[in-house]
């Protein structure tokens, strides 16, 4: 122990003695460790951190933990659940102490009742009465929602504030408890505040408040889902009995589910639905880290980024190792003296490794400071609405300390072992000579640089592929022009519009919006372009047989001139027109994919099909036109366009929402505000989830791709910079070690250009060796990126050539300065040096 303390004291003195070296080494390590800590902090917050609840390891998620906020009307599902199915699973299982249910709404308007305008739209969680007791939470103030609050529909308008919202809006004032707040215009009484640190069970979402599930009709207005067997909208979390495992729970719940299908729950389903769900399976997985949609989007990108920053850290280690190697030469005499006076070599090794471990820890400390900034940057890239539990915890601390120590050993070992090879007698006799001899070779340093180039190639190639892929993804042909469209999603049902009222409203909106400054033409639809909703049905086409899945097609309901406004070309027949109203024959426009799939080799115009649904079976639809294939929703960005039919909005019995498409004459972002005000002027009470440009919606949908491309480019740049510095350092050191040689060469007739060529050739040779190692390594490793790439292969030659040229250019720049310095060596001085 005394020896270790002595080593640490001596190491500190050594580092203080060379402030320049220490600063450069610590900064280099800080960049590498900071990048790793930043990414790990996000990985920890999103993937590893447990919810701040009682015994989180006993929680299990029933269904899909990454499907949050989804809603489905149709055949019952097993990833999210209907309320009747939740009741069956909750009451009949034998493995949980309790199962709670919750659903999110992101567009709740809040009015504090003090004459203020409605607050910003907030995210609230509708929760079952046992939600807080299953999670084992205690209130920060007042009380939490309980069984008595979640009884009959709309019976108990109470709410619990999230702690962060309580802090932000009410400055932690307890006087808010007992007061009324209007949510979507309906008064709710504040009964308490959730505990500090608990932002809800959905990781990455800002849950401002909690209301009982029974209040759903006031939160998602115009809908009544409590008894609807076909509306799946709930996420379930259960607290396992102490002896139960998620595996046992899964087995038990599936038995309960099958019994429910055979019992009263199943009796409420249509025979088709009952048949369809017979084979579905309910998954149960550990739920201690809560639910998260972000987790599915960002899990693999984050793990890939961990790999990338790991490589960046290795590159940083190489730089510091080379610094230490260069410094080790200077220390030969010191080590020789230590050995000469009786130190054994292991003891000296311990001393040297203590120094590098200390350097690693200093780098770790500086890296942690950089990581604070890095985490902010990362969160900014992941999305400003995202809140993740990113405060450092024991896991982040342990990670940083472990990485710092391992880093210290990684970069310190080779120089330490090299130093140990010192021959005592010659080193004592002539330390300078030993320095120069070793310096002229510096073989380890050069090998490390070649390895560093290989690693840089790997990181840069990955970044290059991701950037090119993103570029192809964003600039691909969507089947229409994206850059002059504004999309507005409206929820007339929530404002109490009847179905016929909604059709009328759609026409009123068009009439009003047509005269809006900056707006050229306007259309409406039900799903529209990238508005976040999508629907599909099985259809019946005469002569085409198969299961309902085989006969599935996507659908949309569109108003007159939709295709002209959006810019999707009509290839045959006509589009949907004003004449396609409620009383006329039902018509549809189908896309090319639908023609190819259902009407191969035929002209579909004039053909009929039906929707495989009780309400539609007696309503044949006539195809009046064929539209070009178009990518219109999130899932379609990376996939081939699926068969799709467009019905006339005014002819469908149940339109569920209105999406406005406005084509602008100029930059669309400039017209967003006027479109919004025109919609508000049409009906001030109409809920408007969003009005955005189409491009911004597309970019939101490709968020994970954009984040991955941005971050990998950033870290690729960092890797390149570190490699450049490393190569520069090694070449500078080599040139310094070759002063005599350069002097001799110049004395024997070498010109300055010969000397520059000599040094540059050596630098380029190192890069060439690095490339020879790196290219196969990169080609093999980037296969992991395959699923992230769009429109190019993981062996994309263009990206590879670009990266090779970039590395070559950087190597030339890094080698140029030492080469120029070498060419300026005065042979007379160099020879006297001896």
């Amino acid at each position, binding site marked *: 122990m005394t020896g270790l303390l002595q080593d640490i004291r001596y190491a500190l003195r050594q580092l203080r003695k060379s402030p320049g070296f220490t600063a450069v080494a610590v900064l280099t390590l800080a960049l590498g460790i900071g990048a790793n800590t930043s990414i790990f902090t996000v990985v920890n917050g999103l993937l590893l951190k447990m919810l701040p609840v009682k015994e989180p390891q006993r929680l299990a998620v029933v269904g899909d933990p990454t499907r949050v906020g989804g809603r489905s009307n149709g055949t019952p599902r097993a990833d999210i659940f209907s309320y009747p199915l939740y009741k069956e699973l909750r009451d009949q299982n034998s493995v949980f102490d309790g199962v709670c249910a919750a659903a999110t709404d992101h567009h709740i308007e809040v009015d504090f009742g003090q004459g203020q305008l409605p607050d910003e739209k907030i995210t609230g969680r509708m929760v079952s009465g046992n939600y807080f007791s299953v999670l084992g939470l205690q209130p920060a103030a007042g009380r939490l929602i309980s069984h008595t609050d979640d009884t009959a529909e709309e019976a108990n308008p109470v709410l619990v504030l999230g702690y962060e919202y309580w802090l932000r809006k009410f400055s932690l004032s307890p006087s808010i408890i007992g007061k009324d707040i209007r949510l979507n215009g309906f008064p709710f009484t504040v009964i308490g505040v959730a505990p500090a640190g608990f932002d809800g069970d959905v990781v990455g979402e800002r849950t401002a408040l909690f209301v009982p599930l029974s209040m759903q009709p006031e939160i998602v207005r115009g809908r009544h889902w409590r008894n609807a067997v076909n509306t799946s909208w709930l996420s379930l979390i259960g607290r396992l009995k102490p002896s139960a495992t998620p595996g046992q729970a899964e087995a038990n719940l599936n038995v309960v589910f099958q019994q429910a299908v055979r019992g009263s729950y199943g009796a409420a389903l249509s025979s088709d639905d009952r048949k369809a769900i017979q084979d579905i399976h309910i998954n149960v997985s550990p739920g201690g880290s809560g639910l998260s949609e972000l987790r599915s989007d960002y899990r693999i990108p984050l793990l890939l980024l961990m790999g990338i920053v790991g490589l960046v850290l290795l590159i940083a280690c190489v730089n510091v190792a080379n610094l230490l190697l260069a410094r080790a030469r200077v220390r030969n005499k010191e080590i020789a003296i230590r050995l000469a006076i009786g130190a054994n070599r292991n003891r000296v090794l311990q001393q040297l490794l203590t120094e590098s471990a200390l350097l690693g820890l200093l780098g770790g400390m500086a890296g942690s400071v950089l990581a604070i900034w890095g985490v902010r940057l990362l969160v900014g890239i992941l999305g400003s609405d995202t809140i993740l539990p990113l405060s450092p915890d024991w896991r982040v601390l342990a990670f940083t300390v472990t990485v710092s120590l391992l880093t210290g050993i990684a970069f310190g070992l080779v120089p330490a072992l090299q130093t140990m090879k010192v021959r005592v007698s010659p080193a004592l006799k002539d330390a300078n000579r030993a320095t120069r*001899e070793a310096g*002229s*070779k510096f073989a380890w340093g050069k090998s490390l640089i070649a390895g560093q180039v290989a690693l840089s190639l790997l990181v840069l190639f990955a970044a290059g592929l991701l950037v090119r892929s993103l570029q192809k993804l964003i600039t691909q042909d969507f089947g229409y022009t994206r850059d002059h469209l504004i999309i507005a999603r409206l929820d007339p049902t929530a404002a109490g519009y009847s179905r016929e009222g909604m059709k009328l409203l759609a026409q009123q909106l068009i009439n009003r919006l047509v005269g809006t400054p900056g707006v050229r033409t306007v259309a409406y639809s039900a799903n529209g372009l990238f508005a976040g909703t999508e629907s599909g049905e099985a259809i019946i086409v005469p002569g085409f047989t198969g299961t309902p899945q085989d006969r599935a097609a996507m659908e949309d309901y569109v108003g007159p001139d939709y295709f002209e406004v959006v810019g999707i070309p009509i290839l045959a027949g006509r589009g949907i027109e004003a004449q396609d109203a409620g009383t006329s024959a039902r018509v549809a426009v189908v896309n090319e994919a639908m023609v190819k799939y259902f009407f191969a080799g035929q002209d579909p115009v004039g053909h009929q099909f039906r929707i495989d649904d009780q309400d539609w079976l007696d309503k044949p639809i006539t195809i009046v036109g064929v539209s070009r294939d178009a990518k219109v929703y999130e899932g379609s960005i990376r996939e081939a366009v699926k068969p799709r039919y467009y019905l006339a909005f005014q002819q469908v019995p149940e339109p569920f929402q209105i999406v406005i498409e406005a084509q602008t004459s100029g930059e669309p972002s400039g017209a967003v505000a006027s479109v919004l005000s025109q919609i508000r002027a049409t009906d001030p009470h109409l809920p408007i989830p969003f009005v955005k440009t189409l491009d911004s919606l597309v970019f939101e949908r490709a968020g994970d791709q954009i984040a991955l491309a941005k971050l990998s480019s950033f870290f690729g740049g960092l890797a390149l910079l570190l490699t450049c510095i490393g190569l520069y350092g090694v070449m500078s050191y080599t040139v310094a070690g070759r002063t*005599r*040689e350069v*002097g*001799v*060469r*110049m*004395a*024997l*007739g*070498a*010109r300055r250009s*010969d000397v520059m060529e000599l040094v540059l050739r050596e630098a380029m040779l190192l890069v060439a060796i690095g490339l020879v190692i790196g290219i196969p390594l990169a080609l093999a490793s980037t296969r992991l990126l395959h699923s992230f790439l769009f429109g190019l292969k993981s062996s994309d030659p263009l990206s590879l050539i670009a990266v090779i040229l970039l590395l070559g250019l950087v190597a030339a720049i890094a080698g140029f300065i030492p080469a120029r310095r070498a060419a300026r060596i005065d*042979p*007379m001085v160099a*020879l*006297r040096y*001896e």
Partner: protein
Amino acid sequence: MIQLKNLERSYKSPAGQFWVLRRVNLEIREGEFITIMGPSGAGKSSLLNVLALLDDGWQGEFWFREQAVHEMKRKQRGELAKKNIGMVFQSYHLLDDLTVRENIDLPLSYKDIPHSQRQGMVADTLDRFQMVAKKDLFPSQLSGGQQQLVGIARAVIHKPALLLADEPTGNLHSSHAKEIMELFRGLNQQGTTIVQVTHSDANAAYGSRTIQLRDGWVVSDTANPELQPQEAVKQ
């Protein structure tokens, strides 16, 4: 062959201007074997560097075979040196990573000589210096005398008219030193003009003319007995 007229060399230091060569007037004729002697700091190596055209910082006139070196640009001086001058160093200055053959080839590699011709010249030189058996060895595998032999072979491979040697036997055992000096004598007899710097009277005896330097001044020259030390100082 060479004429130096009022050649001076000085360095600036914080303490003021420091003179290493003062008003040097010297004529070196073709075929001479000149020895430059003097105590440490007398300016011997500085004079040799000037003659080798490694140093550019002097003033005065320098004529090489009637060409005004003092009017030449650095690049021209380099070309002149490359063609006409060979250098032998006290500590050999062989490149550790190159073999004997590659070291000898080095001066040729900086001239526009075809590779096949270079190979022939290197082979001849190895043969002439009886080092064929050692051509693939590295300097660290040779004795000091052998290393200096390589150094000389390297200096004369391109058949320079002037061979400059700075303490060529300074690091050698006396028996090896004798061999090297015999070699110089032979080269001189074959027509090479030689200027050597040495502290050794024995080595000086191989030369045909001795020049003494002190504090940068030429204080005696056996070819110019008229030059008196007192007069020189007065200059």
